[in-house]
């Protein structure tokens, strides 16, 4: 059984699977034809997107494979009750899981809010005003919180601090990781753009 030659060729072959999977001829059985095995390969591909800290160059070519979410029945093995309790909207792929922290400059403690409770910026800002007992002024397209010493900002997925209100609402709730209500000089800088 001369697999040596084949193995070397296979090692350099460009493919979408992770190296080391489906590639050891001696021990592994060939992938079966059932749909379960097919989705197993899909899972290998999509999981590679997250391996930033681990293997370096391997992931680059894998990231071109779009992860298709072939959900396997009964996997991961979590009781239905628990599944339904934690994720009532599990098909909403854009939504973040839970609450986000809200801090306000000068306030002694942080709060948490569920972004999914709100449908628009005015609703959110109103809720923040009530929660922290302050006034943010009008949120209009051009003037951005004029007349207020507060400016609502948020940290996005990339870790950058952005002014609340620039992007469409749905994009905002899917990228917002935490909120900070700035006040004073810093805030004035933002509102006078």
């Amino acid at each position, binding site marked *: 059984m001369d697999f040596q030659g084949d193995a070397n060729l296979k090692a350099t072959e460009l493919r979408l699977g992770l190296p080391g999977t489906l590639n050891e001829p001696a021990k592994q059985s060939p992938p079966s034809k059932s749909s379960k095995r097919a989705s197993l390969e899909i899972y290998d591909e999509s999981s590679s997107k997250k391996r930033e800290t681990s293997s370096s160059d391997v992931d680059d070519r894998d990231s071109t494979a779009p992860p298709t979410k072939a959900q396997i029945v009964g996997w991961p093995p979590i*009781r239905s*009750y628990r599944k339904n309790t*934690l994720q009532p909207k599990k098909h909403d792929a854009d939504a973040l899981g839970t609450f986000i922290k809200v801090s306000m400059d000068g306030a002694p403690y942080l709060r948490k809010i569920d972004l999914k409770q709100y449908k628009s910026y005015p609703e959110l800002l109103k809720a923040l005003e009530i929660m922290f007992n302050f006034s943010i002024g009008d949120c209009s397209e051009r003037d951005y919180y004029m007349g207020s010493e507060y400016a609502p900002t948020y940290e996005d997925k990339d870790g950058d601090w952005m002014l609340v209100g620039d992007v469409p609402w749905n994009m905002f709730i899917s990228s917002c990781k935490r909120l900070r209500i700035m006040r004073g000089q810093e805030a004035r800088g933002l509102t006078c753009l």
Partner: protein
Amino acid sequence: MRALPELMDPKRARESPESAVLSRPSAFPDEVLERILSLLDTHKDRSSASLVSKAWYHAERWSRARVFIGNCYSVSAEILVRRFPNIRSVTLKGKPRFSDFNLVPQNWGADIHSWLLVFAEHYPSLEELRLKRMTVTDQSLEFLALKFPNFKSLSLLSCDGFSTDGLSAIATHCRNLTELDIQENGIDDISGNWLNCFPDNFTSLEVLNFASLNSEVNFDSLERLVTRCNLLRILKVNKTITLDQLQRLLVRAPWLTELGTGSFIQELTPRQYADLETSFKGCRNLQTLSGLSEATALYLPALYPACANLTFLNLSYAALQSEELARLLAYCAHLRRLWVLDTVEDKGLEAVGQNCPLLEELRVFPSDPFDEEIVHGVTELGFLAVSYGCRKLRYVLYFCRQMTNAAVATIVRNCPDFTHFRLCIMNPGQPDYLTREPMDEAFGAVVKNCPKLQRLAVSGLLTDLTFEYIGTFAKNLETLSVAFAGSSDLGMQCVLEGCPKLRKLEIRDCPFGNKALLSGLEKYESMRSLWMSACKITMNGCRLLARKMPRLNVEVMKDEESNDGQSYKVYVYRSVAGPRRDAPPFVLTL
């Protein structure tokens, strides 16, 4: 239970001349022997005692008050009542465990009703019924409530088929009820009115758990119930109970040993918060705490005074962050069992390792099991951190998205006392993320280092080597769960041949075929059950098994999820009751 024919009809056994020869006259009169044996507690001890001699067998069966049936189809109600005439407490488990994960179709069976009919005739003094994965209808609950005047204790875990109307019947008619424990069932939650059905003069309740019901209950009813039931020691309310309502309940029942809070988020005034804190201070006996849904950093500190004696903290429905958990754990030095969501991340688990040296059990559940976009959760680092700080760890259930062989090897070196090791790498067939190798060595390390291992669940990319290790080293293994693993029949064979104490084997999506299935022919009679789905079993293999082993029930279902129409779900179990008579059309008994 062994199927010894002469013991099946106890009356005959007493009278037949053969049995007189076989049994020696006992040194004690029967009544004394019964009294002595009635002190035996565990089912295993009682089983052992019943095998000593005929006299002991009969003394044991007359004195037994509690029976545990791990597979409701392994025995029939008729056989049960014939052998044990004085049962007060019955524990029954029904469907195969994979039914929890939707792998078993509806109406599969495990209906309690036929049992209740027999019990009504033979155990009219029945006091306790504990059911897991059984189908229970409202009609059954009403029957139970009406036909058993001494009924005291009802526990339903992961059951289905009933609604809150059934609970109304229990509350209305069970005058002596001490326990109502409703957990994680698939039920029809119509309303919270059932709580109002407890009569005004009803005061015997000691345990009330309705945490997993969603409907709002009438708080006044609940408060009055808690007030008049001064033996109440376990109270777990549902999410509709607010913080200030909880505070009022705690004032009424400060001697609770187990508490499940409702929702832990609310706009509290400083005065309300102070009251809450005071009420928690008053709970000096609290050993178990759960609930805490939507708990935030703001109100968790109110709990701290109640945590001094906590041994079990269940945060698996509270999406805590790492700092929140760390601050809470600083007050929980005596913790032995901890359940959390992976929102606490590795940092939170570091805090576990630092604060809980007595920890024996850790369960980490995934908060977002299906979302692959978000890189949250726990990794091998969290598990490692716990293993360094909690050397007494013996039970772990860990859901993660990455793991390494080296980490697991270190973990089991730190904690060699594992009895239950359930690791779920959520991506099926995922290798060691650093080395890209299969996870064989991880589980090899587990079985080599943990001689007391009773239960194992494996995951990740695994070849037959994992199962060779298991068969070679896991000599105390009783339960094994396998998914998306193995390379060939050899894997399953190794386990069947190598694990003498194996009782439950459940397998899904593995390349094990007929050869593997048939290699366990003699083994299955010493096991409770075998489940195999989406493997390479064919109908012929199942037929052969059924033909060779007539004392096994071999049940086959078509696998709806597979594309090729060749896949089956096979459930094999030993039984003294023969093939079941209530099998639905989609279950073929061979």
